[in-house]
């Protein structure tokens, strides 16, 4: 009750009387401080945006943007890119049969070869991607169907994966490692590239499979359970994902360091794509010498071990060869956009 009456009293200025009691005491006035802040007179910059101030700014923006746009456009144009669809929708496609007769259960892999020709030589390092279309890796339920703890090598999560992995959490009573829908749908086509030289001989192009994953993913985010011990032992008591043909510790028979959760193909796949049409880095073709192009123009042959079904949901599979620049892959949009916006600004500024 006193609360309100007290306020009233205080505001009424009774303390002035109290201060009089002290006699010599300094009378504390209720006068507000005359500070710039309290009187709302802080020195302020008033951005009065008038045509006079804004248009020169536009002009400057235009001047900056147009060169950037030109730079982007040029560097994007310098990037060589080659793309080939091997889904096998068309009857003429070599992979038509494989696509048609696909079943997860077949033990014998279906093989098909797609020949293609590069019109221009690829000079620098060439990145080999596989591309998928109409594949919604960003589907909400799909994205979360994984267990990061398990992938980070956590023992308890290995044995008892997160509920998010349902329905790919356990199989036949055993926890799935790696669990979840993402891992389960791992892209498992094998691509091999051959250069057909003028004699008609198939030259295998060496494909580097290391260094395709992010450094942080490979060294921080993904870890095998049990450290450097034998992976077979480490993954004992777990079951392979339903769609997989081999367990996670046998993903790369050629390189024991590239097995288990730290298999780079696996890591790349686990980084879910943002958009339904995407590409993922598959291999790197390194430049051997400065004199010869990495991929000279000519005829090539792409050998595919066709394991991955996409036709059922109208998906497409592609193989992409591309060089990159400082700004990433081939993309004319940015350059054009910069030039457009820059010129709009420029013209506004000039007027």
């Amino acid at each position, binding site marked *: *009750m*006193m*609360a*309100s009456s*007290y306020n*009233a009293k205080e*505001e*009424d200025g009774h303390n*002035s*009387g109290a201060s009089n009691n002290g006699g010599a005491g300094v009378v504390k*006035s209720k*006068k*507000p401080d005359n500070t710039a802040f*309290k*009187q*709302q007179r*802080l020195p*302020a*910059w008033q*951005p009065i*945006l008038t*045509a006079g101030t*804004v*248009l020169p700014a536009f002009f400057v923006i235009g001047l900056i*943007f147009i060169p*950037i746009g030109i730079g*982007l456009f040029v560097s994007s144009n310098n990037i060589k890119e080659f793309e080939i669809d091997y889904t096998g929708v068309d009857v003429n496609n070599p992979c038509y049969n494989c696509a048609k007769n696909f079943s997860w259960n077949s033990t014998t892999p279906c093989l098909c070869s797609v020949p293609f020709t590069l019109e221009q030589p690829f000079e620098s390092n060439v990145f080999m991607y596989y591309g998928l279309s109409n*594949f*919604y890796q*960003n*589907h*909400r*339920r*799909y*994205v*979360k*169907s*994984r*267990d*990061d703890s398990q992938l980070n090598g*956590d023992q308890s999560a290995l044995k008892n994966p997160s509920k*998010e992995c349902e329905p790919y959490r356990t199989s036949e009573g055993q926890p799935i490692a790696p669990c979840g829908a993402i891992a389960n*749908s791992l892209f498992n086509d094998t691509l091999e590239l051959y250069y057909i030289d003028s004699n008609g001989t198939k030259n295998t192009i060496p494909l580097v499979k290391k260094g395709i994953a992010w450094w*942080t*993913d490979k060294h921080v*985010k993904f870890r095998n359970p049990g450290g450097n011990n034998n992976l077979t032992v480490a993954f004992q008591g777990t079951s392979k994902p339903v769609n997989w043909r081999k367990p996670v510790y046998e993903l790369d028979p050629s390189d024991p360091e590239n097995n288990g959760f730290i298999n780079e193909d696996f890591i790349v796949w686990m980084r879910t794509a*943002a*958009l*339904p*049409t*995407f590409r993922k880095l598959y291999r790197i073709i390194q430049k051997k010498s400065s004199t010869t192009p990495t991929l000279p123009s000519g005829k090539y042959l792409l050998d595919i071990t066709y394991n*991955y*079904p996409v036709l059922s*949901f109208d998906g497409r599979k592609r193989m992409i060869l591309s060089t990159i620049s400082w*700004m990433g892959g081939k*993309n004319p*949009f*940015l350059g054009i956009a*910069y030039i457009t916006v820059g010129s709009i600004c420029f013209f*506004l500024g000039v007027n």
Partner: protein
Amino acid sequence: MYSLECPSRLNSIKERLRKKRTVVPSFTEDEELSQLLKLYKGNKIRTTKYSLLSFLPKNLFEQLHRLANVYFIFLAALNFVPVVEAFQPQIALAPIILVLSMTAAKDIWEDYRRFKSDHSINSLLCHVYSSKQKAYIDQRWKDVRVGDFVRLSCNEIIPADMLLLYSSDPRGVCYIETANLDGETNLKQRQVVSDLPLQGVEFSLESFHCRVECENPNNDLGRFRGYVEHPGGLRVGLHNNNLLLRSCTVRNTETVVGMVVYAGHETKAMMNNSGPRYKRSQLEKHLNTDILWCVLLLIIMCLTAAIGHGVWLNNLKDPLFQVDTETSPALAGFYVFWTMIIVLQVLIPISLYVSIEIVKLGQIYFIHNDLALYNKQLDSRIQCRALNITEDLGQIQYLFSDKTGTLTENKMVFRRCSIYGVEYPHEENARRLEVYEAEKSEEAGRSVTLKSGCSGKSLSCRSLSCQRSSVSLHTLAAETDEEEEEEEEELSNPIHPRTNAFCSRVAKEVVPDPELVRKLNWFCCPELALSDGSSGTPSSLELTYITDFFLALAICNSVVVSSPSQPRHVVPEARTPLKSLEDFKLMFQRLSFSPFTALSTLSPPQMKGSPVSFTRRLFARGKAGSFTPTNSTTDGSDPGQESNLEPPDPRRKLDLSSRAEGGDAGRTEHRDTEAEDAKTNPDGARQDAEGDPIREVDRESDTNEELLYEAESPDEAALVHAAQAYRCTLRGRSAEGLLVDLPGIGSLAVQLLHILPFDSNRKKMSVVVRHPLTGHVVVYTKGADSVIMDLAETPKGAEQAQEIYSHIREQTQIHLDGYAREGLRTLCIAKKVVGEEEYEAWLKGQLLAESSIENREELLLESAQRLETNLTLLGTTGIVDRLQEEVPETIEALQRAGIKVWILTGDKKETAINIAYACRLLCPNDQLLTASCGSKDACAVLLEELKVEVQRGEASLTEPTAAGNHGESSSGGMAGFVLVIDGRTLEWALQEELKSHFLELSQGCKAVICCRSTPLQKSQVVRLVRDQLGVMTLAVGDGANDVSMIQVADVGIGISGQEGMQAVMSSDFAISRFKHLSKLLLVHGHLCYSRLANMILYFIYKNVMYVNLLFWYQFFCGFSGGVMTNAWVLILFNLLFTSVPPLIYGVLDQHMPADTLMELPELYQAVQTSKVYVPYVFWITVLDAFYQSLVCFFVPYFALAGSSVDVLSFGSPINASALLIILLHQVIESHTLTWIHALVLVLSGASYFGFVLLFGVFCVTCSPPTNPVGVETLEMSQPLFYILCALTTVTALLPRLLFRALCNTLRPAAALTSAQTDKVDSERYRKKMQRWNLSHSKANRLPVCADNPGLEPGTDTVVS
């Protein structure tokens, strides 16, 4: 049997309780009664809302009452449903937990403070009588129960509402200070219950067996009804005067004993304790519609997603990436709907409500700290009592103002008077007021009453030289002496300076009119005056009139007297041994008339005892120690008397005559001037009478006796001071008597029989006294002229007397009208001599009325009205109430700002109109429409007529200009119609059938003045305008009569002035001067409104913009509710990273400098018509947000489509550029940028980038589905990221930038030109108005005479 009986007995008790409460002493033996006492609430108070246990459930429950919180919880709960879950549950809980816990923390803190104060109050100690120990024992407040006897000493706080049974004061009174209750610092007198056996030295509580019956607890502070039933069955009425209220302080009384009747929460103080005011602002209502639009938008977006997802799912066949294959597309769509609601939740700006509250607090802070709203004199700032309607200040369209105390100072100063039909113009007095005016402007110091001597002296020289006035010299000389006294007093007694403001110097020192003084002197010293003979000898009748008049001024009031040496104590009464009263009686008789019976045909006085014995009796009751031994002059007779009897001193004569020539030397006698001089300012004599020991003594004695009057109303104080100037000094007051100094007679004790206090229905107050000289019972009445003039009837009796009397009435009426025209407040003074039988008869009825419980007010009113008849008019007074400083300027500014100003006052029409002229509400060119009629039909006709007239006038005026927009053309400081309506007509006009006419009429008028209106009418008018016209109203007032109006209006403003705190207590804002309104409305209101409106728009923009980014992404993830950001970032984006900038924007933004706003009040109209916050602006903002989000999403999309970008890397540039866009958008929208803005913006940006970077480094397995490890570090190491951000930001902001630039380039010019055209328009309008006025010269316009210092001399352009 017993068990059966008990409840029934209890029930019967409860039955009784329902009607009234019975209180008996707590030691009563009666079983039933003591049980009854236990049913009453104890004195323990608990104002806390929660206890330790109940806090969580209760607080949660309370918080859930807010819709916003329910929405939050609903979302959080939704997130726990697995099929729709969008984020992990803990993330979804974050916002609600944050909001709830912040509110809870605030509540705990507040409650703890309440608990602490409760506890300290509850454990205060007081002395309670214990029947076991037969003594007073210390008990804590909380243990006090109803029926207990409590003893209190001086300066103790009263623990509960108690009936005053005993006071150490011999007269049985006790003083309390109610500052804790209502903020009024003057003392209130309380009276021991009459006819109690206790009042005496040897009183014992044990013997007290009375029963108190009183009404049930209620919150009416001014009412208490009941009676005490003595064991013998005798009933004594109780009233408010017998009740000591909780939390008041006992003052000036050594000991009081009371019986507790209401305790704890049932006390009046507690029942009056209502929580803070909550008003919903107009903008908030607006906002709610926009929020509804947001909800609609949200639902549309969610439905789109739901349908899209269903369709998308339907077209899919056995996809690899599908996790859940069983759910049908329709059901999945349904699930997605809810998921989307979670994902897009920020579209409903829940945090907006919290933000608005914070912003308003910030705005309040600045309003509170504004130097321009600080009053030096009172050392008071503006009080902001309602925290949530700051922006309504920027929306006001109608302003209703009280007059007295609001427009005027409410410092009443006696100006002139008329007695016996003779006008005394008090020229010197008028001059003095002007001098004061000049002084005041020069000294900008503190309270005028406490002045430093040196400045006063320098001024005195100035005023002396130019005015040749002895008076100013005297006043200032007096002041130097006074100063010490008052300082001393201040040290000894902490009185708020405001208390003294009642008796400010200017009010105290009335310069008497020489003519009147002469007449009065003649009466005092008849032999001298008679011998003069040169000037007209006033008739004896006139002399009685004059004496009676001043006696009435001195005693017909409720003024409490105190002296500085003994602050607030009742001035000891027996000071001077009286001159033999018999002498005076003789003198009266010698004057050969029976002055007090001259006009009555009543039977000769029947005195119940000689006056001397009476006075002795009266004074015997005074304290024995009240003689002040230090005062050496007490043995002297009245100083004035002394000086009059003194033989003339030639030296002085010379002096005075030369001095007096400034005024009216020609007809003034030396003696008179001297007498006047000595009387009014004995101090002044010091200069020229140094050698005169008697004078010296006089001076001392008089300064020592410097009396302080504490009056309930400033009018009373002014009148008492006026009387004092004529040496009719009120020296002391007790419950039964008054001590009055009369000129030439000395101190007289006047037996006070009754006070019939002022009430607004009767419009008058009366005192019933036994005249000290004649012994008659005399009623002195003071009141509004209309009432008194009606009651003042021609007395039956001699024809000559009748003739004289009707002449007096006529003359007085003429003077009254003159006063009113001058803008003076008039009060009529009347008296009535009551015969003993008549008095006895009346007394019976009065006592009956006093002791009745039910309809006591009515009975008292009736009784008072019975007595106040057949009055004899003595005279009338004119009191000046000057305009406050800068009122005309303020009103002009407000009118220019498009605010219609109405004055609602209880004053007379003439006074009201005059004030309206003075404060420039009325211009000389304005057409005055007066509505005053006696019946409803007449009123209807009149309104109709006036309407036609206004329309005609308007038609002729607006023909050439755009027709139809008369509302605008008549506003804004140019000529127009002003409606004056009186209370009676208003009553008709407010009725159902006529109110639309009234409104229509008033809309055509520039201003409306309602005079003679009651408080209820004031609130009715405000309500009518508010509801029927749907406009924002503001009411400003200072007194209790304005409370209802203040409460009804959208914004209520109280002026903390002279009349207590009721207006302030019920207001939203309390200011100390009227002029503060212009800064408050034009600057703060304008700024607050535009700030808040812009902030809200910005907030909505921000949310729409960000949420749309997520929405666009749905088109690329199969409408599955996926997001491209980490969930924490998503939640915190709104809650943290972008939450502070809008607050700063809302608190600090100044879209126009304050000076400009003050100089160009027209700018206020832009806000007033809601140009800042109208639907189309809202939609433009939303569209802009859509555009920006499109850019912000699709630029990265096109740049990254088909590449190997992953979800989070895709979201990273989008988020970053969204942040930049949002922050830079604010920079564009801000009108001012200070270092605070810059700091906050930079910190906001930095906090985002810091957070995502650290999160990306350290969060390895946390936040599972969207694990951000390494994303940001990688992204920010790539040039593409910056290229994207730059392009996105620039492209998104381009249109807004362009728009603003174009607006700013075009708008200022537009504003300027419009202001100019306004001026041209107004000129043209004024000319037309003048022409029209000439053609309608018959229209009624009041002649105006400018005598009020505040009045403009040029306003008296009379047409008729």
